[in-house]
């Protein structure tokens, strides 16, 4: 089917045809490098401002061409997820596939249109480059292959979390968040690039990359095993953690961070409780040390310390003032955020290891500090913050002006109180949201309608509460007023509380960043309420220490002075948790580990009563 006649011998004049080539343009290539095309994959450019040193480029590099280099002058901020590391490229190995560009979470890396590098054999070092935005040889070349929505290999969108709608949750304390099923958890976990920013930012340094990887590999038991390395309150933290990990997540720089907290929750819910107990007991020292430790308070800090110490072979007894263990997660956090049975499971794991809890045993009343000191080798003070601070505005001593922590504790204990038809909450933090939303639910149950006003000093964009909390509170009918400063609780002639007067806030801090709110007194508002709830912070009740011990201990501005390991000036006494650090559950867990390690190390070498 050839369309040319190969048998044709051709004309004798055929050679003359070649003369036409004199008239044609020759194929000539210029001597210098030709400009590359617009998406050329040349040498790397790296924008140091947006590079966070996460090392994802290094992981995707198929030729192992990328070394992460510590650059001291670069910014470091573990809370925001920024490391002072930068990728250096070995151009002896790089194949310019640009996967590093496509996978970079922050879109810092691109390839330039520069492609010529020549050196002699003794200049081989020049193959190892630390790219910046300036180009390979200091001459700026335009960008070539860059990240576009088409080339981006980072999944910026979070798997959607099923939740109760406002109308089906506003009159009950059912848990709002439904949790991921196995498939959604796997998909969400597989978004992770395993950079470990979460690990660095987490107060207790949970091995989040490892447990996330276990989840996407379909091994939730391994995930639980990783969690118990660093957090015996994984059910609690899987639900109500302040998730600093997600703030630091490198995917969060351009998109939605990995739902690390929900993944932890998924793994804990996916594994049978009895199996969790077995996993938690792994690595326990079998030979008892004979040392005894007392822990005061059964919140996350105290029980974490107890968990660690009992695993080291020590005998641990916990003293709890109330009738149930759990501390703030039980008595401060409403059930719609943290169902009590989940908290019970966390505590059950810890007690199953042999931690003994004495309930309704108040130190300073039922037992004295000195008896603990005499009976035990070491004592941990983990009493949390159980006293609500007061605004001390006129009228705040009225019986219907309540502290949020007290009310929350009563709600948990189901102690009856008169549910106000209308209430005003002072405060813009998570506790304020918790009490406002809890009261709203009780009002809805009792009266069928919600009348809660929440006033906060801060403007809306600076609220201390989690934005999700604010959003959900609004959905549930809470009126939220920002930049309002409380001035007085108004009490009528019969001595009944009528509500709260507020002024508009002009500024909260003075020039030295000290708390000194300024108000515009001409902008006064009155908020009606049968009850006013103060949710502006908590403090520790240290009266249990007794006079002698209080005298003997060293203090720092009203707080117990502790060293880095949480040890007080008394060698046998450690302190941990909210009463040291301020309120944060995962911080308390971290603290528990810290004091446990310190106690274990000290007990191994010395008798603490003879120091």
């Amino acid at each position, binding site marked *: 089917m050839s369309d040319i006649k190969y048998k044709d011998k051709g004309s004798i004049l055929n050679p003359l045809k070649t003369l036409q080539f004199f008239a044609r343009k020759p194929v000539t290539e210029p001597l210098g490098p030709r400009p590359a095309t617009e998406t050329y994959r040349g040498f790397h450019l790296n924008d140091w401002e947006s590079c966070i040193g996460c*090392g994802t480029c*290094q*992981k995707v*590099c198929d030729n*192992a*061409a*990328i*070394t*992460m*280099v*510590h*650059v*001291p*002058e670069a910014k470091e901020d573990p809370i925001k997820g920024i490391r*002072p*590391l930068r990728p*250096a490229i*070995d151009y*002896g190995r790089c194949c310019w596939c640009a996967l590093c560009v496509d996978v970079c979470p922050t879109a810092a890396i691109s390839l330039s249109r520069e492609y010529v590098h020549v050196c002699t054999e003794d200049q*081989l*070092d*020049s*193959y*190892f*480059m*630390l790219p910046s935005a300036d180009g390979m040889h200091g001459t700026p070349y335009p960008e070539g292959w860059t990240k576009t929505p088409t080339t981006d290999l980072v999944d910026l969108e979070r798997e959607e979390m099923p939740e109760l709608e406002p109308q089906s949750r506003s009159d009950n304390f059912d848990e709002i968040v439904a949790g991921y099923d196995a498939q959604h958890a796997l998909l969400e976990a597989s978004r992770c690039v395993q950079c470990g920013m979460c690990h660095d930012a987490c107060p207790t340094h949970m091995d989040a990359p490892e447990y996330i990887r276990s989840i996407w590999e379909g091994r939730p038991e391994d995930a639980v095993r990783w969690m118990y390395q660093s957090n015996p309150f994984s059910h609690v933290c899987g639900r109500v953690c302040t998730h600093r990990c997600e703030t630091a997540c490198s995917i969060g720089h351009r998109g939605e961070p990995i739902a690390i907290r929900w993944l932890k929750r998924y793994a804990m819910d996916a594994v049978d409780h009895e199996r969790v107990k077995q996993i938690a007991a792994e690595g326990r020292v079998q030979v008892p040390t004979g040392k005894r430790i007392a822990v005061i308070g059964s919140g996350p800090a105290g029980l974490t310390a107890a968990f660690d110490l009992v695993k080291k072979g020590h005998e641990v007894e916990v003293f709890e003032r109330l009738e149930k263990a759990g501390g703030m997660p039980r008595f401060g956090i409403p059930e719609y955020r943290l169902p009590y049975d989940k908290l019970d499971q966390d505590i059950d794991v810890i007690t199953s290891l042999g931690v003994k809890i004495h309930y309704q045993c108040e130190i300073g009343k039922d037992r004295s500090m000195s008896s603990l000191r005499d009976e035990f080798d070491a004592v941990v003070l983990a009493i949390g913050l159980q006293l609500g601070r007061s605004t001390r505005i006129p009228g705040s001593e009225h019986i219907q002006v309540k502290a949020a922590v007290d009310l929350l504790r009563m709600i948990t204990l189901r102690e009856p109180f008169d549910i106000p038809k209308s209430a005003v909450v002072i405060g813009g933090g998570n506790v304020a949201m918790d009490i406002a939303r809890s009261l709203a639910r009780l009002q809805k149950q009792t009266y069928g309608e919600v009348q809660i006003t929440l006033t906060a000093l801060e403007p809306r964009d600076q609220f201390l509460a989690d934005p999700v909390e604010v959003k959900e509170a609004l959905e549930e009918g809470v009126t939220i007023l920002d930049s309002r400063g409380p001035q007085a609780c108004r009490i009528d002639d019969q001595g009944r509380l009528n509500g709260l007067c507020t002024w508009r806030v002009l500024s909260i801090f003075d020039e030295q960043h000290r708390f000194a709110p300024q108000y515009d007194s001409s902008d006064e508002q009155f908020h009606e309420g049968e009850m006013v709830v103060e949710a502006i912070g908590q403090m520790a009740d240290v009266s249990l220490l007794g006079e002698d011990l209080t005298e003997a201990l060293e203090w720092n501005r009203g707080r117990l002075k502790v060293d880095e390991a949480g040890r007080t000036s008394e060698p046998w006494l450690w302190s941990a948790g909210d009463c040291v650090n301020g309120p944060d559950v995962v911080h308390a867990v971290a603290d528990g580990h810290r004091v446990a390690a310190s106690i274990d190390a000290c007990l191994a070498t010395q008798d603490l009563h003879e120091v």
Partner: protein
Amino acid sequence: MTERELDTHLVTILRELESLEYRQTSPRRVRIDVTREALPGLLELLKGRASYVHLSAISCVDWIEDNEFELVYHLWSYESNHLVSAHTRIPRETARYISVYDLYKPAAFFERDIFEMFGVYFEGSPHMEKFILTEWDGPPPMRKDFDAEAYVQETFNWQSYHPDWLKELEEEGGGVAIRPEEVRR
């Protein structure tokens, strides 16, 4: 692509033989699982009676956990335009099988390749000798128990770079933090 019927010759053969399972995995692909004893006979029938004259490839997979090698014979029919993949497994220890060179000339290349790379000896194959790895005296490298990356790490050195910018960083307290080999899984 429309669903195509398997040609009758193929179906007849497949039904005739015992000790095999087959299923159509896509319109033009048929997977057959057959015992190692029955495979040569199957190929003979496929070639002789069902027009599968083209041996596209023989693939070998090392299932080290099952202690078996899987041999896959990919056959194409120019008449019915179907690709039949006949899978069989042989024990990993003995690693011997029968050559199909008599039936399919291309087998010689693939069998030699599998012999070199997996150490499977094919009886009756014309070239049971080295071809690509002439100077290699280690174990057959495509076997799963040969760790190529470890071999490379042991045998070759990484280029050790120490450019000026790195020296400067080291003076300031920085320097190499994570080497690429540390993150390879």
